[in-house]
């Protein structure tokens, strides 16, 4: 059942303590904001421990080279240097190589070769950050330069240099081939189709670049062997377990604390060498060691995103019925296969490239390769590569519309999965939980004034002006995921939650997921409030500390609300059920004679006879004679194993104007209608969407991590890696529909990555639409002025 709501006027956001604030779902200001607006956030680099030392990493200047020698003598002689650690030192500790999240290994410090520019070579620990940097200059490394593998299209050529000579028996750069769907069935549909369109497209390498870079503070206490590790991590529990496995420190002796995080977007999922080096530095020096990377280190060495070369094909009838989609992908994974995704899925959830359409057949093949570039690959709010999948299918549908001479909206409407087909089993193995796409598309058209825009475009075209209208309709798959299918390094993708109601009726909820700005302290308090009727301001949300929260896999892939949100709702319901038993004892009646209204159990037919949650909490902890089997508290815990993923969707319309003289693209309007199921805090949801839309404009128009032929990174600072400012983005126009998830306890589907996933094709489709008078049907991102101008001259070129 889908609810379509008209686009609301701008609404007020009541403060968390205002008399008119909702106790449960609805707009309230964020509970975390009072500290942030006063500059009292507590980010990693704000933490200072007594006697703390500072680490800095020496990095490789080249993409591929053999290490001949490393001389640390002068650095060690620096009066403020306490330690210099090299790969050879780590080999002695069996820590030179660490397992990645994709069953590969990654060098912590290079021992044999350097394999990408910016790779970690040595670690200095000194008294302050300036001295640590000074000492890096005193380390003398001799390299023998080797030919690098930079052009991913040549990585599998016979005779190409082999990146991973450390892996025994390795003679090429091939990592994996992975397929989904039925190739033979798909080929048969293609062979019989009236129309087939084909397009190669590049989703270039980009970077999440959160405003706070990555860092860690390791504090190893040698007497009791306890390691306290402060980290910029989205997944503190997974990190603790992995550290126990890697470093051999018993898991109960490790406490991972993830303080306020200055943006993550997937950049802070993996374990980077710097984190391990901080631990080694602390063990070696006996003091706390802080390591915080600079911006170039962040852009050049930590988890990048995308880097897919995709060849897409669509088979259709002449009247616009899409029959099948197939694609071949070449995936650049860099020097180590360190992508973070469920074990069974080396290409993440790319196999949702069938999009929002009812197909007869589909097939994809993805080939992953090593190159001499930084490792990573699943990051930047991508929902485990749904971003690449949505870009492929939404770009291909526009290519087909162009071939058929059909309006791109009409073509989409004709092919949507129909509401009565849900739950919908697609051709690559997903079961879409719920959807009703047409009302969402129509609302976006209404907000945009679609017909008027097309009329305006026709008038402008007649005058020779370049105006484009781009459509994107995406279906996401988030909330990973069912344990029987999904794990990361053997850890099932479930999350825990604990709720305790204190004797006075205030509560604490403890989460395994970790906010990087999403507002968990507000949203999760609102879920408890909705279920128990305790006001959000009376609920403390604890997260980001493994000593004080239940186990779970953390925040990425838009999984906090779908997984942890479900855990919190079910935990709250357990508390409510227990409260019913205690209330019955207090009221001297039977539990089945009680009825719930938000915050209170009362006797059916006698609303005056009841007990509030606060009264029940006091009873539970007090002297009430408790029923047999009920212990004296009002606490509960749940670990939630999702039965399926959730499938948020949305319709986006982008309007651009292009300057004919310069090729500069101006995003004039952007309409986004999202359906994330039940909406917990509309203010926070809109904020998540706005941020993702800016990401999409950035990727489509500006952001690009490129390399020269020698493997020098050309996007290694904010001088070169361009991110939208307030001048490059419009005032976003949002709307929503509500199609709850049928299997989620509150019907919520997740929203964190929808806009990042859905917006890039809308922008590129608008650019290509504007350039249609030049006979163009495709151009690759980033649509920079120079590249657009080239496309206008009939020379559109891929960025790599």
């Amino acid at each position, binding site marked *: 059942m889908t609810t379509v709501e008209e686009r609301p006027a701008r609404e007020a956001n009541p403060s968390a303590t205002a008399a008119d604030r909702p106790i449960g779902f609805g707009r309230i200001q964020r509970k975390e904001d009072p500290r942030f607006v006063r500059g009292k956030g507590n980010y990693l680099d704000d933490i200072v421990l007594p006697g703390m030392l500072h680490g800095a990493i020496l990095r490789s200047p080249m993409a591929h080279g053999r290490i001949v020698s490393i001389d640390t003598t002068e650095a060690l002689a620096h009066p403020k240097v306490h330690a210099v650690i090299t790969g050879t030192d780590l080999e002695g500790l069996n820590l030179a190589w660490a397992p990645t999240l994709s069953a590969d290994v990654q060098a912590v410090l290079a021992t044999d070769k350097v394999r990408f520019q910016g790779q970690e070579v040595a670690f200095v620990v000194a008294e302050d950050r300036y001295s640590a940097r000074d000492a890096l200059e005193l380390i003398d490394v001799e390299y023998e330069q080797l030919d690098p593998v930079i052009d991913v299209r040549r990585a599998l050529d016979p005779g190409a240099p082999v990146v991973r000579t450390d892996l025994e028996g390795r003679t090429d750069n091939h990592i994996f081939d992975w397929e989904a769907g039925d190739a033979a069935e798909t080929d048969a549909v293609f062979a019989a189709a009236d129309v087939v369109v084909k397009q190669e497209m590049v989703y270039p390498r980009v970077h999440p670049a959160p405003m706070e870079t990555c860092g860690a503070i390791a504090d190893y206490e040698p007497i009791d062997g306890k390691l306290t590790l402060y980290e910029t991590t989205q997944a503190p529990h997974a990190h603790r377990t992995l550290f126990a496995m890697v470093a051999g420190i018993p898991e109960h002796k490790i406490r991972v604390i993830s303080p306020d*995080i200055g943006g993550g977007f997937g950049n802070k999922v993996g374990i980077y060498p710097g984190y391990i080096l901080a631990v080694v530095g602390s063990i070696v020096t006996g003091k706390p060691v802080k390591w915080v990377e600079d911006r170039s280190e962040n852009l050049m060495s930590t988890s990048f995103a995308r880097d897919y070369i995709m060849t897409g094909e669509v088979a259709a009838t002449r009247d616009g019925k899409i029959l099948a989609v197939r694609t071949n992908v070449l995936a650049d994974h860099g020097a180590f296969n360190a992508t973070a995704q469920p074990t069974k899925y080396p290409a993440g959830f790319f196999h949702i490239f069938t999009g929002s359409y009812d197909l007869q057949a589909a097939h994809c093949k993805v080939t992953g390769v090593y190159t001499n570039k930084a490792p990573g690959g699943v990051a930047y709010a991508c929902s485990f590569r749904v971003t690449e999948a949505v870009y492929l299918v939404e770009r291909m549908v526009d290519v087909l519309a162009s071939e058929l001479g059909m309006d791109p909206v009409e073509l989409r409407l004709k092919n949507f999965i129909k509401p009565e087909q849900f739950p919908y089993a697609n051709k690559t193995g997903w079961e879409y939980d719920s959807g009703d796409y047409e009302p969402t598309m129509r609302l976006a058209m209404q907000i945009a004034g679609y017909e008027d825009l097309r009329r305006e475009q026709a008038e402008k075209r007649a005058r020779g002006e370049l105006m484009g209208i781009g459509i994107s309709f995406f279906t996401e798959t988030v909330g990973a995921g069912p344990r029987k299918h999904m794990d990361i390094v053997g850890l099932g993708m479930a999350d825990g939650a604990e709720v305790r109601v204190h004797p006075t009726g205030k509560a604490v909820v403890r989460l395994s997921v970790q906010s990087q700005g999403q507002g968990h302290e507000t949203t999760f308090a609102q879920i408890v409030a909705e279920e128990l009727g305790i006001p959000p301001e009376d609920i403390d949300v604890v997260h980001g500390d493994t000593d004080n929260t239940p186990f779970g896999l953390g925040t990425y892939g838009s999984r906090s609300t779908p997984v942890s949100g479900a855990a919190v709702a079910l935990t709250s319901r357990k508390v409510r059920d227990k409260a019913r038993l205690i209330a019955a004892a207090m009221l001297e009646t039977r539990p089945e004679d009680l009825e719930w209204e938000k915050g209170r159990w009362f006797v059916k037919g006698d609303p005056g006879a009841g007990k509030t949650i606060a009264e029940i909490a006091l009873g539970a902890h007090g002297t009430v004679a408790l029923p047999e089997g009920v212990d004296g508290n009002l606490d509960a815990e749940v670990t939630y194993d999702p039965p399926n993923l959730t499938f948020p969707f949305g319709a986006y319309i982008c309007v651009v104007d292009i300057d004919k003289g310069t090729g500069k693209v101006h995003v004039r309007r952007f309409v986004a209608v999202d359906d994330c199921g039940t909406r917990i805090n509309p203010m926070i949801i809109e904020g998540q969407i706005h941020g993702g839309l800016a990401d999409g404009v950035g990727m489509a128009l500006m952001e690009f991590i490129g390399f020269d032929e020698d493997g020098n990174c050309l996007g290694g600072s904010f001088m070169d890696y361009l*991110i939208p400012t307030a001048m490059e983005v419009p005032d976003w126009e949002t709307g929503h529909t509500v199609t709850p998830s049928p299997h989620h306890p509150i019907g919520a589907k997740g929203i964190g990555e929808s806009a990042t996933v859905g917006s890039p094709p809308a922008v590129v489709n608008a650019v290509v639409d504007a350039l249609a008078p030049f006979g163009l049907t495709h151009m690759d991102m980033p649509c920079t002025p120079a590249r657009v101008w080239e496309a206008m001259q009939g020379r559109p070129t891929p960025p790599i």
Partner: protein
Amino acid sequence: MQVTMTVNGTEVTRDVEPRILLVHYLRESLGLTGTHWGCDTSNCGTCVVLVDGEPVKSCTQLAAMTAGHEVTTVEGMADGATLDPVQQGFMEEHGLQCGFCTPGMMLTARALLDRNPDPAEDEIREAISGQICRCTGYATIVRSVQWAAAHPAAEGTTASEVPA
């Protein structure tokens, strides 16, 4: 070398290395960690503070160069429990998510409103165009500044009146 400057209304003198950047001086010598650091190239603006009322990227300036000047950081915006209208506006209009760019954005907004109490949307966008936010997509930051412009005395005071 000894450096004396006024920070959030209080004169402070510290011994510093001549090469120390203002951002590191504020964060590490004075413990004012509300001013953040986000890039190496003066592009991101998370380090913006006011120097003599004007927004300055504190990573582009040495502490020594700031001697004799008046610095306002985010910690100097509120008057005790009373927030500056800009701070209130950011909470009202969801102008922040992770909070990392927020101090710099708010100080730039304060400087803008001090010289232009009723800025147009494009003037606000231009004022913050030297700063990057990765979370909000900027629209709610613009609305936050508009909220502050519409509530100039919203139980708040201007930064210049705020004691440390």
